[in-house]
């Protein structure tokens, strides 16, 4: 066998110097995204994705979550539309990442939504023990919001639209997982990897941005 020393193992030392040598740790970049994901999961009473907690008060908690984000987006979308008109007369107005001047409200709503989506999908792909119904309500609420955003100036920004399109597709797939075929989750998580949706979602959340209650100054 071996003991806990490896300093006398030159082969290991050589491999350590040559094999997948880590670059400097991108501490701040990772923390910004972790912080945003955590805040997105906490700013409203999201249902934790565990069976026990879901059985506690599913209707109340899910309803609160849906109500919260619906109100958030309704306000954001409303302000966005009010600001830019019907879109046909302001075709160059872009969303939060575009060249135009986005409304603060719509920008905040978009960031909030993307952060929630990132948090949800992180849990979806890692919590393999959760039942499908656990994800269904949240996926539906996120899908509704995604479609709302696609119809705003945010949805006219090409990069953001691409992310929202893929998010819409993945959420629609999650909703359609048959109860008797949980293995279909693997296909969806494969799709997440193929489309690189998680890194694209996180990249779309501006660094240093932390979701906060809508309308906060």
């Amino acid at each position, binding site marked *: *066998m*071996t003991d*806990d020393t*490896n300093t006398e*193992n*030159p*082969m*290991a*030392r*050589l*491999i*350590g110097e*040559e*094999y*997948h040598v*880590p*670059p400097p*740790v*991108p*501490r701040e*970049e*990772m*923390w910004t*995204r*972790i*912080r945003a*994901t*955590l805040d997105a*999961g*906490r700013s409203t009473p999201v249902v*934790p994705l565990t069976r026990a907690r879901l059985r506690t008060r599913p209707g109340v908690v899910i309803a609160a979550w849906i109500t919260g984000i619906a109100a958030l987006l309704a306000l954001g979308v409303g302000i966005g539309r009010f600001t830019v008109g019907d879109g046909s007369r302001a075709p160059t107005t872009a969303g939060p990442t575009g060249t135009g001047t986005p409304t603060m409200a719509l920008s905040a709503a978009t960031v909030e939504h993307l952060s929630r989506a990132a*948090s949800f999908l*992180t*849990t979806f*792909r*890692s919590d*393999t023990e959760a039942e499908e119904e656990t994800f269904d309500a949240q996926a539906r609420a996120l899908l509704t919001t995604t479609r709302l955003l696609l119809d705003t100036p945010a949805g006219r920004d090409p990069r953001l639209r691409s992310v929202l399109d893929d998010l819409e597709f993945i959420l629609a797939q999650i909703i359609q997982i048959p109860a008797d075929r949980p293995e279909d989750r*693997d296909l969806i*998580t*494969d799709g997440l*990897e*193929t489309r690189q949706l*998680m*890194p694209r979602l*996180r990249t779309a959340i501006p660094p240093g941005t932390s979701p906060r209650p809508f309308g906060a100054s």
Partner: protein
Amino acid sequence: MSLSPPEPVDQDTLVSRVLARDPAAERELYDRHVDRIYRLVYRMVGDADRAAEYTQDTFVRGFERLREFRGEAALGTWLTSIAISVVYNAQRKLKRIRSREQDLEAAETLGREDPVPNPILRDRLNAAVGELPEGYRTVFLMHDVEGFTHREIATALQVQEGTSKAQLSRARAQLRVALADLAGEWVT
């Protein structure tokens, strides 16, 4: 080797503050462990973007599940076990995707000759380590490259210390065979 640097605040206190959603404590927990987690993840995946993504997933899951942490192991070891789980799951999905892509490529490249093996040392090492069975590779990288102890490895992988030692021994033996012609690189 300890998983954590000297701690101004003990682990239990820090965990309690994080559970109370103290942002400074959350950041302190992250700062204490992120370097070692990221380094291990990078050693396992060899890609900066994926290493960052998996490290982020590790900490998000860690914070979300901190209430499940019972303090039976060091917090760093607990986070390491999450990181390994995240990497394994992601690697398996990637492997499935790549095997499907390779099936398509194989149909297109049928009849072509295999590329000439690259004699560069780094490529040889990458290939030799990459060909280790997943468990051997993880134990080898954790112990011989990143300096984890067998106790830490056993806890993180939920195996016996003897299993960790045996896997390391087999990994080293397999590497010696695979890299026998490079022995001059490390035998003085």
